[in-house]
Structure formats: C-alpha cells, structure tokens
C-alpha cells in the first residue's frame, strides 16, 4: 500500500530543495510559488518597471534553480535567492540610468490592456472605495518616496522593513559590513521621514 506523500507546503525550504535535487519538478514549482511575490516585489521596487522586474525575477529563479545542486543547505534558501535577485537588480541599475517610477503602467506598454496590466497595483485589503483610493494614494506616495532613494539604501530598507530580514542577513546578502547596513537603513528612514512628512497629518 503506497503512502500519500506529505504536502510540499508543509515542508521546510531545505526539505523542498532536497526533493528538487532528487529530480522532482513539483518541488521546483513549490520554491517558485513560495518566493515569486517577495522576489518580484523587491525587484519591482528596485528597478521601477514591471516588465523589467518580471524579466529579472525570471532570471533570478532560473539561475537559482539551475544551480540548485551548488546551493549549500547550511545557509537559508531565501537569503541565497534574495542575494541573487539583489545582484541582478544592482547589475541592471549600474548598467542603466532609470526613468522615474510610473504608477500608471510600464512605459513599454502600447495598448490600454497592457497599460492596465502593468500599472502599479496597490493592495486591496477589503476596505470601502474611499479607503481603497486613500490606500492607493498613500501607497503611491510611499512607493514614489522609496523610488527616490539611492539604490543601495533602497535595497537595505526594503529587505529590512518590507521583507523583515535581520541586519546580519542583509549584510550577508548584500556583501556589506554590518555597520554600513545599519547606517544605510537609518539614512533611508531619515529620507523617507522627511519626504513623507506631509502625510503625517
């Protein structure tokens, strides 16, 4: 009598990685499902272009999953993945000067549907229409303020306060000294505090 395999959602990242290394495609898919939103969100906020963020997210997962055998289980899988994603974003930003954040959709979108599909989507958490408009406006203001930060400040503050990573983990991911990470995060908070001061009322 064959036993029912445990649902992948109940396994730790390390256990899912072991299954992936054993050649199980469903384990690969589980890893993508777990991290597609956090990775895409980080990259979207870093590069400020939806299509580009999606390309970089795909590259991140493809690079990580094709090198799954070289992943060292003593490190957190998520740290490894975020490090690859951040490197992809930083490499891109170094190569190219970016235009400003578009809340109305990607500059590459040419049809109304594409504009709609690529517009910045701020979460709907069940509020009424007025709340949603206010949340979108507030979210838009915050996204705009984040977009104005220097890329290295942006990466640090997003990892710390949006993804909830520890300082030590961020330092390891970004290959920066711990003190530098703390300073960047403090400066980023300072700049956000100043640029969002008008929202406090």
């Amino acid at each position, binding site marked *: 009598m064959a036993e029912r395999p445990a649902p992948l959602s*109940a396994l730790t990242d390390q256990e899912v990685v072991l299954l992936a290394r054993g050649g199980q495609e469903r384990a690969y898919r589980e890893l993508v499902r777990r991290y597609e*939103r956090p990775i895409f969100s980080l990259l979207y906020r870093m590069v400020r272009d939806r299509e580009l963020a999606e390309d970089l997210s795909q590259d991140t997962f493809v690079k990580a999953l094709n090198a799954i055998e070289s992943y060292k289980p003593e490190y957190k899988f998520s740290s490894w993945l975020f490090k690859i994603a951040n490197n992809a974003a930083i490499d891109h930003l170094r190569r190219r000067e970016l235009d400003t954040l578009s809340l109305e959709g990607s500059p590459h979108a040419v049809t109304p549907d594409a504009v709609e599909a690529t517009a910045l989507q701020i979460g709907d958490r069940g509020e009424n229409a007025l709340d949603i408009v206010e949340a979108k406006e507030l979210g838009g203001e915050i996204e705009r303020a984040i977009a104005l930060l220097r890329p290295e400040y942006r990466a640090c503050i997003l990892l710390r306060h949006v993804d909830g990573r520890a300082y030590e983990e961020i330092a390891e991911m970004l290959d920066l000294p711990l003190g530098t990470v*703390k300073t960047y995060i403090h400066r980023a908070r300072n700049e956000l*505090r100043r640029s969002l001061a008008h929202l406090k009322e």
Partner: protein
Amino acid sequence: MERSVLQHLTLDEIDLVLEGNYPEALRTHVNGCPDCSSLISGERLVVQWLGALPLHVPAAGFEDRVMARVQVVTPRSALATLRHRALATPTSRALAAGAMVSVLGSLAGSIVWSLGHREVLASLGMTAFHNVAELGWVVVHGLATTLVEQPWYGSARALADSPARLATVAGVLTTAWAAGMLLMRRLIAIPAGSVAHEHI
C-alpha cells in the same frame, strides 16, 4: 536641528526603541526629550507604512515561464556522482588520474607476477584449502558437541520424531515471526495523518 537629535540617540538605540525592547532609562529620555520623541514617532510611522506595503504580483503564468527555462536535475547514480565529482576541478581530475594509474599498475603487476609464478600460486592455494577445510571441520564438530550436551536437546529431538508435532512447532514459529514483522512495520511507519492548517 537634525544633528542635535542624532547626538541624543545612537543608531542602535533608535532600533531598540523602534523594536519596543529598550531599557527604562532610554524610555525616560525619549519621553522627556521633544526632539527624540518627534524623531521616534516619525521613524515609527515610516516603519509602519513600509511594513504595510503590499506584495506585488507577477503576471499570470510566471511559474510556467520560469519552469520552461529550468532544467530539472536528473538524479545520478552513485557511480555517475563519483565521476561528476572526480571531473569537477583540475585538482580532483589529477587525483582521479593518479588513483586510476595506481590501480591499473597494481593490477598489471599482479597479472605479470602470477604468470611467472604459477607453481607458487598452486602450492599456496592447496595449503590454504587444506587449512580452511580443517578449520571448518573443527568448528562443525565443536558446535555439534555443544548442542548435544544441552539439557533441552532430548526434548527437542523428541519433537522432531513425530511429523505432526514438527509441523505444529513450525506453524507456531512462522505465525510468531509474521506477527513480529507486522508489529515492527507498524512501529516504524511514518504517520500519514493530515497536517495542521493544511487546507489554508
């Protein structure tokens, strides 16, 4: 103004206050100092806003697009893994080549020596066979003597005299063995029960 505020609290102290886990002396200072109080309330608001930012969602079909570019690992046999590791770096390749030369050299040397010393090998073989056979006989004889000297030997021998009794004993022993195997299997089986929050 900003500089004087920074002189009040270090970066680590600001983090402690934001995390809500800070000593009483720091709390007293923050509550009594308008600059620090304003700084902390502003930072707290920023942290709260950042924490409330929603996750962005990639376009539908993202997972399939990723998987179309991913090469799923094919599990290797132990031999294939060994070969892969041996060929991975120049050092491992050199070590593997050295080991292979040693093994093949030893093998070739053995064959050449054997071909030139057949009579020695035959003599060694006969002596070894004789010694092993003698040792085997001593062991069998010793075991048989020990068995016959056991107090329960007579009763066991009586059981074997009747085919019906022999069959009964064999049946009881087989049943006990099967029950034991079944019990062991149940004890070592992984529970297949549902997981908490599995439906979420």
